[in-house]
Each structure stands twice: as C-alpha cells, then as structure tokens.
C-alpha cells in the first residue's frame, strides 16, 4: 500500500531491465514529476542513468552509445513524439514504458515506425500519479470541475490516475462514493468501467476482505482547506507552497542564491521525515537541537584554525560539514521564514479565531472576534477574506447571520473585489445546500457527548483543535458504520466485514491536514491501511483557485449573489 515505494519499484525495474551501460531517461512533463518524487539524482546516477531528457525537447543530440528508457504517459502527443523519435532514432536501443493503458492502435503505429528495430521493450508500468508520501498521492490537477460537473479531460486523467494507483498497488476494490456529489458518482462509474474493461489486468490474488475505494468530493468539507496549519508539512504548504516536494523561497527577503528553491523530501531528508507531522513549537525545539548538533560539528570554525592539524581536520570534515550545513540551513531558512510570516501576518491570532469558527458554535463570540480581527491592520486581506469565508460557511443559515456587515467591513478594509467575490463563491461551492452531511453540528449522541466533554476539558492546543471531516467519515467507515444512504456502494455487492485496505480519493483536492489525519489513523487503528489521494493537494490559495476555476461564482452572480447583494445594502 506504500505508494512511494510502488512507483519507485516501477522505476527501478525499468532501469534494471535495460541492463548495463550508459542510459538516458526520456520523459514527458508529467512523468518527470512522477520520477523526481521517488528518486534523487544521485540515487539514479548510481544506476548508470546519466541524462534526463524530455521527449518533446528538440535539442537532443544523436548519442548512439546510450540506451534510452522512455517513461511516458500514453497521450496522443507522446505517441507522436515517439513515432518521430523511432523514425530517426537518436539512441541505440529503446525501452518504452507507458504509465497507463495504451491502445492497440498506438502500439501498431509505433511498431510501424520502428523500422530500424531499435525498440527492445514496450510495457505498461502504472506509475501514473504523484506519490507524495507513502500514504498520500496526488494528480496535480487544479480545477477539475466545471460547476458541479467534471471537466471531461480531467475526468479521464483522474480515472487514469486512480486506476493506475489501483494497479500499482494490485487492488481491485469495491467502490463507494458520496451520494451528494454528482462528480463522485461519475468518477466511480468511470473507474468501474475501466476495471470491467481491463478485467484481466485487475485479476489479483483475492484477499479475504476486498479493498475499498471511497470517492469523496471536496465540497462536502470546504472548511479544512481554509484553515491555517501548524504542523510542519501542512504549514510549509499553506504559507510557502509545496510543488512536487519543492519549495520556492525566492520571495523570502535576503535569501541566498542556493536556497532560492529547496527540496523537502521525506525520502532523503531525515530531519524532515521525523518532523513533518510535528507542530510548529516542536519543530522549533528540534531545529534548535539540530543547530546545536551542527555547532558541535563545526567547532573548528569558531576556535579558529590554529594548527595545521586543525586545518587538516577542517578540510577533511568540510564536505561532511557542508552537507550537514545544507540540511541545517535549509530547515533553518524554512522555519525562519515560517515564523516571520506568522508574526507578520498575525497568524496566531487569526488561527485561533479560525479554529473557533470551525469547531465551536458560539455565534456572537465568533462574530465579535472576526470583526475585531478585520479591524486589525496586520491581518492581510487574504486572511481577512478567509475568516469571513469560514464565518459564511458556518453561520450560513444562522438566524442572526451578519455576513453582509462583514462584507462591508471587508470592503472598508480595502480587500479586493476578487476576494470578496470569492466569499460567496466558496459558500456556493461548499455551502449547506451542497453538503451531503453536516459539518458543524454533530448529530449522534456519542459525538455530542464527546464535544461536550471536550468543552469541559478545554482544548490542549487551541490552534489544532480542528479535525477534518474526513476523520469522522473514515472512523465510521472503519467501524462499519458509514451510512449506506449517504455513501452507497457502486453495484450490488456490499462489504460484509470491516474494511482493511482503504483508498480514499477526494475530488477537488485533499489537504495535508487530512494527510496527517490519515497518517494518525493508520498508526492507531489495527489491521487497517488507508491511502489518501486527491486531484491535488491544496492549501488555501490553491483551493480558492479551484473554487474560482469551477466557475461557480460567475454563475452565482445571477442566482445567489443577487439575493445576497441587496441584503448587504440593507
């Protein structure tokens, strides 16, 4: 069930199969990302892969002494490029791997182009998704829906990604989906279709309890991607943005040249691997330890190198030291930037109110706090807008809803039109009308008591009290209590036993907070393995773009916006 390992295995197998000799890896834009998530350059160098080329790059030289490993998505363009390549081969021999199912006709046209008989292998290796963490994958699709329905291109990409994941993990699942979402149903059907069509591919050893694929829609929980995060990975993504494990730091003031872009990968960064799920305070102390460790390692520097022996030692240890300093300076820079942003944007206070909005039901105090923060000049328009969005989502139907007043405050604060429009768009995207389940008020008695007890005890950490809605869904699913009227099975058969291997896919993107939830569920629930996936992994910014891309706000202008606008004038 480890998705990183699954992809890595595919890549290793490709390289292995090509035998000894100098190799070039020929990829397209997407597979480059896929490979780079699981292999580092030095790692792949050890396997005699010395060059990495894009199939679409024109400036490739003829190098007949190289073997080419082609790892490509089976798209029309790639097949065309490959046909051209085979007509005039630049390398001595070609090992071709497609990341997904390729049509017979494409194989035929490729075969006919291979007049010089340079192709030694044509296979499908289903590494067609971005493996972020062992239990988290993404398809890097932003804006998968138009309105409430799929963008057809993205639907087919998502279907491919999801089926590839199933194949790479060798799972032939039963499918459940969120009834309230048309998109979820559509995707479920598409996946089922592929499974039926490629039935001989999906013939795996039967397990006692069949695996389960649960398809959800982001619009059921629009709260989670709107919250500020305080665990390392999620926080970095929220404040700096992680793109295929890379972080762009070029906007950080006074950044040195070699830290403009850093890579955070749990696969080869021990510190990151150990700290990615810890909260900000813990990371602070850990990074201090790291620094101290580092200081110990470089005593020669402060002592001044007095003797030749010192110098020798210094020179000997220098590479070691540099390497460590790479890790240290990277994390110190990242954490430093995080804390700078936190204080600059007054995020602690903002986050506290966010959490109150998300987790508690005290309308008047929430409203008061939001209003107070909107007056605070340190709060950015982005954060102001998200506070109002959270308020709008939570108290959408509250009797004394004062969203119009808040919208006025936003306007007075000088928040741009774009963000103000997004408030209604978000409500349109994930409002009560859309949600299949209740995000805010727990219905069953157990949950009510739980919340009551929680209120009595007080929360341990005011900034991380929020639990994504996904937690509850999965909890119910694991216990076999997930309601079938809300999350029906696709097809007649249902699961008798409690599920063991679960794949959850969120249309419209997952978040790192949810990844953490799934991580913790994995760690604490015996006999259950859960893999989380999404069309992408969101932070607030990308989520708002997603909402924007769905085009709901423009349509809502005619309907809901019209009703809300006169209200604001009142």
């Amino acid at each position, binding site marked *: 069930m480890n998705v990183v390992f699954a992809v890595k295995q595919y890549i290793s197998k490709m390289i292995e199969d090509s035998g000894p000799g100098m190799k070039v890896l020929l990829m397209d834009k997407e597979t480059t990302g896929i490979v780079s998530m699981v292999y580092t350059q030095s790692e792949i160098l*050890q396997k005699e892969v010395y060059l990495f080329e894009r199939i679409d790059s024109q400036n490739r*030289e003829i190098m007949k002494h190289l073997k080419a490993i082609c790892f490509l998505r089976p798209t029309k363009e790639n097949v065309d490029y490959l046909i051209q390549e085979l007509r005039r081969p630049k390398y001595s021999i070609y090992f071709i791997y497609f990341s997904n199912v390729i049509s017979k006709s494409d194989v035929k046209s490729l075969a006919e182009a291979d*007049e010089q008989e340079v192709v030694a292998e044509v296979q499908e290796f289903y590494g067609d998704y971005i493996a972020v963490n062992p239990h988290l994958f993404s398809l890097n699709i932003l804006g998968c829906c138009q309105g409430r329905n799929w963008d057809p291109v993205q639907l087919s990409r998502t279907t491919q990604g999801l089926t590839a994941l199933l194949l790479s993990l060798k799972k032939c699942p039963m499918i459940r989906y969120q009834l309230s979402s048309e998109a979820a149903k559509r995707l479920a059907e598409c996946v089922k279709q592929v499974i039926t069509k490629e039935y001989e591919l999906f013939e795996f050893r039967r397990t006692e309890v069949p695996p389960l694929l649960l398809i959800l829609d982001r619009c059921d929980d629009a709260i989670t991607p709107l919250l500020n995060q305080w665990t390392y990975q999620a926080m970095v993504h929220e404040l700096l943005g992680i793109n295929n494990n890379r972080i762009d730091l070029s906007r950080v003031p006074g950044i040195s040249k070699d830290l403009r872009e850093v890579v955070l990968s749990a696969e080869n960064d021990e510190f990151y691997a150990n700290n990615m799920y810890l909260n900000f305070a813990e990371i602070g102390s850990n990074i201090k330890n790291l620094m101290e460790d580092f200081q110990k390692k470089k005593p020669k520097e402060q002592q001044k190198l007095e003797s030749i022996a010192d110098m020798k030692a210094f020179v000997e240890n220098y590479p070691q030291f540099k390497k460590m300093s*790479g890790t240290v300076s990277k994390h110190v820079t990242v954490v430093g930037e995080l804390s700078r942003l936190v204080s600059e944007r007054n995020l602690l206070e903002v986050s506290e109110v966010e959490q109150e909005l998300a987790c508690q039901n005290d309308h008047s105090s929430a409203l008061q706090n939001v209003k107070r923060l909107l007056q605070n000049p340190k709060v950015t328009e982005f954060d102001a807008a998200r506070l109002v969005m959270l308020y709008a989502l939570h108290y959408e139907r509250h009797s004394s809803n004062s969203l119009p007043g808040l919208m006025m405050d936003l306007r007075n604060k000088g928040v741009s039109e774009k963000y103000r429009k997004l408030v209604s768009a978000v409500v349109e995207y994930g409002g009560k009308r859309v949600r299949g389940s209740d995000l805010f008020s727990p219905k069953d008695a157990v949950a009510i008591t739980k919340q009551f007890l929680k209120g009595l005890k007080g929360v341990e950490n005011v900034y991380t009290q929020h639990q994504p809605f996904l937690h509850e869904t999965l909890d119910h699913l694991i216990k076999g209590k997930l309601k079938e009227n809300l999350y029906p099975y696709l097809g007649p058969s249902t699961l008798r036993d409690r599920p063991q291997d679960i794949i959850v896919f969120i249309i419209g993107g997952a978040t790192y907070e949810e990844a953490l939830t799934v991580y913790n569920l*994995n760690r604490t629930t*015996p006999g259950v393995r859960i893999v989380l996936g999404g069309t992408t992994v969101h932070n607030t910014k990308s989520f708002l773009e997603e909402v924007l891309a769905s085009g709901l706000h423009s349509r809502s202008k005619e309907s809901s916006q019209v009703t809300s606008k006169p209200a604001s004038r009142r």
Partner: protein
Amino acid sequence: MASLDDPGEVREGFLCPLCLKNLQSFYQLQSHYEEEHSGEDRDVKGQIKSLVQKAKKAKNRLLKREGDDRVESGTQGYESFSYGGVDPYMWEPQELGAVRSHLSDFKKHRAARIDHYVVEVNKLIIRLEKLTAFDRTNTESAKIRAIEKSVVPWVNDQDVPFCPDCGNKFSIRNRRHHCRLCGSIMCKKCMELISLPFANKLTSASKDSLSTHTSPSQSPNSVHGSRRGSISSVSSVSSVLDEKDDDRIRCCTHCKDTLLKREQQIDEKEHTPDIVKLYEKLRLCMEKVDQKAPEYIKMAASLNAGETTYSLEHAGDLRVEVQKVYELIDALSKKILTLGLNQDPPPHPNTLRLQKMIRYSATLFVQEKLLGLMSLPTREQFEELKKKRKQEMERKRILERQAVLESQRRLEERRSDLASHAANGEVVSLRGGPAPLRKAEGWLPLSGSQGQSEDSDPLLQQIHNITSFIRQAKAAGRTDEVRTLQENLRQLQDEYDQQQTEKAIELSRRQAEEEDLQREQLQMLCEREWEREREQFRAVSLHTRTRSLDFREIRPFQLEPGREPRTHLACALDLGFSSVQSSTAVETPSPLSALEPVSVWSGPPALGQESFPQSTVLQQNELASLNPFDEEDASSPTAEGTSSPPAAEPSFGPSARSLKEYNPFEEEEEAVAGNPFANPDSPAPNPFDEEDEHPHQRPSSPPVPGNPFEEATCTNPFEMDSDSGPEGEEPIEEELLLQQIDNIKAYIFDAKQCGRLDEVEVLTENLRELKRTLAKQKGGTD
C-alpha cells in the same frame, strides 16, 4: 568472533564476550553476537586512526545518529503499533505493481513492416552491385546505358510530364533523368549522384553482413511512378550523353536517402566512440572495487581488531591494489570529463552534460567506497593491537568474575547466616567440604565423581561435588534446593573459568606494565625537554605555537583512554577487597574459600599495589602508549606528510637542534607508526581527497540529493580539480601543501559564492598560514 577462537570461553558458558550475556549454545551465541555487536564491534576495536578511518567514523557517527533518530521514530511507530496501527513508513513493502507487456504485439506489427523494408534495401544494393560490377570508365556510354537499363526497367518518359519531386514541367530545357536504381524519372535539380567508392562501400559491407542487416526508413516507393518497361526517348538518351560523369551513378533522392541511412548504420556498427571505451573500462574498475573492497574491509577490520586471521602484508597488498583501481577510476572519469573539450566545434551540450554526470557519479562512487576503506595498522601497531585486544578480553572477564564473586560471596554469607540460625541439621552445608559434614539432610558427593576430581584443582572438585549434590537432591525431589545448588554450580564453573584466564592476564599485564613504564619515562623526558623549548621559542614562529596547541588539544583526548586503566585498577582492587571480605566472612575452610584469595590476590593486587600510588604515572604511561594512535587519528596518511615535516623543520630555524631532541621521539613514533604506511599511500589518496570534497561542496549547498532532476546545478566542482590532478610523487610535503592550498582556495571560492563570509574569513586565514608554511619550507630547503 574472538570468543569463538577461545575454547575455554566457549566450552563452559557461551558467554558473549562483549555484554557477558550467557547464551545457551554456540549457535545462539553466534547469532547473538552477530545481531548485537557486529556494529559496535568495529567501533570498539577499529582503533586505527587515519584520515579514511576518521572520515568513516564521522560518517558512522552521523549515520548512527540518524539511525538512532530513525529508530526513535521507529519505536514511536512501534509503540503506536501496540495501540494497533502501523506507521505508513513501516508498511511492509509490497511486490511490484501490475505490468503489461505489448512487446509481442509490437514485434508482430514490426516484423510485417520490416520485411518489406529489408527487401527494398536489399534490392537497391543488389542493383547497385550490378551497376558497379563492370569497369565503367572503359566502357562506352551506350553500353553502360544498356547495362543500366537491364538492371532496372526505366519509366516511360511520356508517363511523367512533371518532376514528381519538385513538380516542374519537363521540357527541352528541363530534361528527364532516370534513376538507375529504381528507374523513376526526375529533373536535374532533383537528381542525386552516387560515387563509386560510396557504392563499393555499401556493396562490400552488405556482402559481409547481408544477413544481419536491417532496413533503414524510406518513404514509400510508389511516388516514383510505375516501372513499366519502356524504350528510352531521345531526350533521355541525350541527357545521358551530355553528361560524361561515368564514374558516378545517377539516382533519385529517395534511393540516395535509403543508401545514406544504410551507410550510417554501417558506420555506427563499426565505430565505437571514445567515451564508450573509456566508460567500459571505468565500469570494469568499479566492478573490481565492488569485488575487492569488501574483502579488504573484512581483512582490515580483523587486523585492526588485533586478530591474526589474515596476514598484514597480504592486506597491505590488497589495499594498494584497491587504491590503484581507485586512482584508475579517477583518471578515467577525468578523461571522460575532458573528452573533446578542445575540439574545434565544441561538443554538443548534452555530450558535455553526459561526461559531467559520469564524472560526478564516479566521484560519488569513489567517495562512498573510499571512505569505507579503513587503513591498516603498521606492524608495531598491530602488535599493540593484538596485545590490547587480549587485555580487553581479559578485562571483561575480570569484570564478569567480579560480579560472580560478589554474588557468590553474598550467597556464602547467606548460607553462613542460615547455618548460624539453624545449626542443627536443616543446613545444606555446601562448603562443608566433601565428606565429613553429613547430616540427615546433607548430600553426599558421589564417590565416582570424586575420583575423577582428584587429579584436577579443588575448584573442579567442588564442581563435581555439587553436581553430585544436585543429583541427590533431584532424586529426593527437593526442587528448591536443586535450584540453589544449580545456581551454585554455575557460579563455580564461572569461577573456574576465570581462574584459568587470570593467570594469563597477570603475565601479560606485567609485561605490558614494564613496557609502559619505560615508554612513559621516555615520553616524560621528551615532553619536558620540548616544553622548555617551547617556552623559549614561543615567539619565533606561529607554527611552534600551533604545534603546542595541537599537542595540548590531544591531551585531554588522551585522558579518556587513560581512564580506562584506572577503572580497571579500581575493579581489580574491588575484586581484591571483595575477596578479602569473602574470605573472612566464610569461616568454613572449604577448598574454594581457600582457593579464592589465591586466585584473586595473585593478579590484580600486584598491579594495584605497584601502580596505584603512581597512578598518574601509569596514566601517562598509558597515554604514551596510546599516543601514536591518537597522533594518527588526528592526522591522515596524506596529511602526515604535510604536518610534521614542514612544521618541524623549517619553522624552527634556530631551535632546530633542540627540537630534534624532541623530534626524534615524535618522529620515531610517527615514522614508525605513520610513515611507512603513509608514504606508499599518500600519492594514492590525494587525488581522491580532493575529489571527495569538490563534488560535495557544490551540490550540498542546494541540498545534495535535492533538486532531483535539475541540471547538475552548475556543478563546477570539476573545473576546479583540473589543476590538482595526481602529479608527481617526489616532493610529497610540498605537493601536499600545494594541494591543500588549492583545496582551500576552492572552498573560499565556494563560500564566497554562497555568501558565507565568516567561512571565507576562516578559510582565508588558513590559506595565508599554509602559504607561509610553504614559503618557509621552500626557504628551508633552499
């Protein structure tokens, strides 16, 4: 490993020599040892201190630290496992995901297509052969034309009003030309010519390898129009006649294309680029290293642990061999890097990138493997190591024995207590001697075993007695007594074990002590001498100062090993003390109690009495003996050369002679310890030394494994090392200094680029110093 060589140890207890855990069988011990101590073993015993070793240690430490972290997180995961779930990082690896091959399909389609092309190309070549089979220059044109026409039927002129390639209308001015290979028609502009040598090349090659040849691509021939046989028109005849190029064959572009491709294929088949040859050699070398290095490491580890399984010479040879291969790898990869650099049209950037990457991976390889290549002890060191190892083992045994004694004593006391409490018969008088104390409940030693035991020592006797007691107790069904007796028996056995080793220990220790004493006195003398010198010449040069610092720095370091003997002593004394206690406490004159004091007092007290009063001396003594190692530790085979000779010689100017008084010792130690080893080696590690640092230095700033597919991020490390290749080996010190300077320059450059000013400062300081040293040295030699 060692415990297995020592039969005494194995026979009785199967005690783990490192943690003293008692294991049930040989196999269990072995597996335990492998599991628990295989890692630390190397650290504990691998006391050789060279650059390589040190680097490895540093690496180990780092790894271990990381490893510990990992373990920590692992245990966290494990803890949570006890709640139930499993950390996704710990999920058991799954098998390779589903795959599907289209190869057979692909081949089927390709085969159909290929056949067609092969036929096509073969046809062209056969025709070409026919066309060139006769002597063209000496045959008249008409005849040639006849032959040409017999090879392939020419297309009828009337059928082709326009040139099929360019579309121009044929006329008197724009005449038709026929392709001699396929018979099609084209205009003059679109006509190609095949020279005879080219034709010959193709036909001769295909004669050689007609069977293996594959067909090149070609646009479909149908374009050329129909090939109906026809009589040539006047115009076409004249077109042949007005051009007297009889040594060339006309053909259309398509046929020419096909033939050119064919030629290219032939060329490629014959030609292997330089880079491939070099690369193949490189890989061979790497394979060799992969083969030899583990073997060597095994040897070195064993030797460094003071074992005698392998011979030092053999290991040395192997080391030289491996290092030569490293040198070769370095040289080869460097050559690959610079391939074609000074060619006029500079190679394609991709070629350069390829070369760079090969070089980079070779340096990575060398770095990784060479760092693991620990050095060998010198002959003297080896002897010491052997001794040390022996001591180590014995110390452990003593510790163990002490523990045993302690418990035994306690048991003894308890027993005597018991005896005094209930003197009347319930007593199981263990130490009551073999025979007389036989009360109602007492056990009798069996006579048979007694007979056996008479020949050996009293301890053995006792052991036998107890065995027989046990048997009796068992027979009587007194399980609790059996248990205590068995416990007793085990202790006795341990005791016997130790006793045997004790004697050996004592002997060796005495020897070591004497040696140490001598050496320490020498050391003291030297140090005092040198101290005086230092006072005098403190101002003379910086280097004297640095040297002194250097030395002082080492000292606290040395104290640590020095501490060991003290605890050693302490425990010995403790041992003595406890045994005294026990001997006083135990009144019964059992054979054992009589024996105890003997066994204990004979050894440690001798040491304790002698050495404790002058423990400081002993400590230093130990230091002295350890010194050479530490010296080695701080320096490297490479550096040895740079540090001592230049520092000692030139900078001391006036004090040269007095220094020599000091130096002889230092030199002796080093010369003996380091030089024979360093000299042959120093040329070897040098190039790597540098290489090691360069590649690291650059990529590490953008975190090394980081930007996975970024272009090798302007990885310039290679540019720098061009000047620091393996040069002459003659004046090593200077050479090394120069290289060091080069290194530091490179670092400065790097640091500057990265804007780490503090580093730059330190490095510049360094550089200046090194330069000064160099200048001085030069002055001194001149």
